[in-house]
């Protein structure tokens, strides 16, 4: 069984403590160690301590962790999908370097 941590109740992403294969079941725990939910990974997650979506997130919607906005979805994100630089963008700084 793979584990993930949800930091604050209004977060829509969780941090997975391991790598994931698509379809694997992930047990979601709160910061206090209480079991909250199960989510199936809908994509592979290639590295440990990366994020997956706890719910579906539409393009342009807020991505929340620590109970705060960590960015906006730059693509539609499925429940259980890996979230990283390919589908989230920063609020304050541009994504691409000016060259």
């Amino acid at each position, binding site marked *: 069984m793979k584990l993930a941590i949800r930091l604050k109740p209004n977060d829509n992403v969780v941090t997975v403590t391991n790598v994931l294969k698509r379809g694997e079941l992930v047990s979601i725990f709160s910061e206090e160690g209480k079991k909250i939910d199960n989510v199936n990974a809908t994509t592979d997650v290639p590295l440990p301590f990366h*994020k997956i979506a706890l719910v579906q997130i539409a393009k342009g919607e807020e991505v929340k962790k620590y109970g705060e*906005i960590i960015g906006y979805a730059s693509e539609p994100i499925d429940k259980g999908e890996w979230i990283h630089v390919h589908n989230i963008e*920063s*609020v*304050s700084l541009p994504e691409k*370097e000016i060259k």
Partner: protein
Amino acid sequence: MATEFLGYERPDGQVGLRNHLLVMATCDCSHQEAIKIATAIPSAVAVTQWYGCRNDPLVASQMIGIANNPNVGATLLVGHGCESITVDILGQGIDKTKKALANVVSQRDGGTIKTIEKGIRILRDMATDLSKEKMKSFDITNLIVAVECGGSDATSGLAANPAVGNAIDKLIDAGGTAIFSEPIEMTGTEHILARRAVNKGVASKIYALVHNSEKWAKARGIPSRFMSKGNLDGGLSTIEEKSLGAILKGGTRSIQGVLENSRNRLEHPAKPGLYLQDGTGWDVPSVTHMLAIGAQIVLFTTGRGATTGHAIAPVIKVTGNPITFSNMEDNIDVNAGRIIEGKAGITAVGEEIFNLMVRVASGEKTKTEMMGYNDFVIWRSDPVADHLIQTCF
């Protein structure tokens, strides 16, 4: 929890945790002499700055601040002769702490070999005097802790930073002082930090600090993903995510002020408590800058496995990543990865860090000290770029 530590009382009332013999080259042109002099005396360490021979007051202020740090027992300045940050300019600032101070200058003292010989003799006598100093017991209100994170990953915000933050809360409650910097890693967190300001003036300064650093990043075309490859591979996707994890290392107590730098004066903490510093997100210069305003010890969190130590201060390494700890145990003092594994709580690890910090203050050596790490880089903020950013953006 022990709240007393052993230290060296300096003539100006500051308390040193170590008795370093500092050999400071005024610039890279005299660094070779400084290294050769310091190599002759076991307790000595040679440092310099790398920005050439012009007199940049922010660089000179930090050099003076480092020599004035209470972990330094005595300083030998090693000058070249034609540089603009002269041994006299540095000496005037350092002299105020009334610690032993001397200088040698290659172009004045007859070239490299005579300068080295003269320097070694002075240093030998300084080392003899320092060896006679006795440590005394001091209350934790005399402790100033620098808090830094480097090589962060997603575990930093889940485990290492909250655990260090817990230790910082204990320190502040006991009357101690802590400083954290890296304004770029406060991006998107200014509203959280400002809520903790002791008053409206400090809240405004926090907003200004973070917005200026954002302006600086935008003006230079620095993207959200300027973070290192390791930060990204470690699960951090945006600067806001990195920042929200990073600020947890400063704990939860009130913020007493934002320590600023005019070009020739570094602001020091006026009284005990928690402070932010306007500085850099680059690890070694950030640590050096906090030591230049009197911090004596460093709590340093890492996810990927930063190996940083410092020339004049003990650095305690804490990782929140259990994989990194088992892989790099030789470099890491505290395994906060136990929090992620469900084997320990944040408060328990926080207490462990606090207790280790008090023991290290009293002389217990950290892993970087045992390895003889003497990292040292002075931070320089380009005054021309700073001016342009302020006026054009």
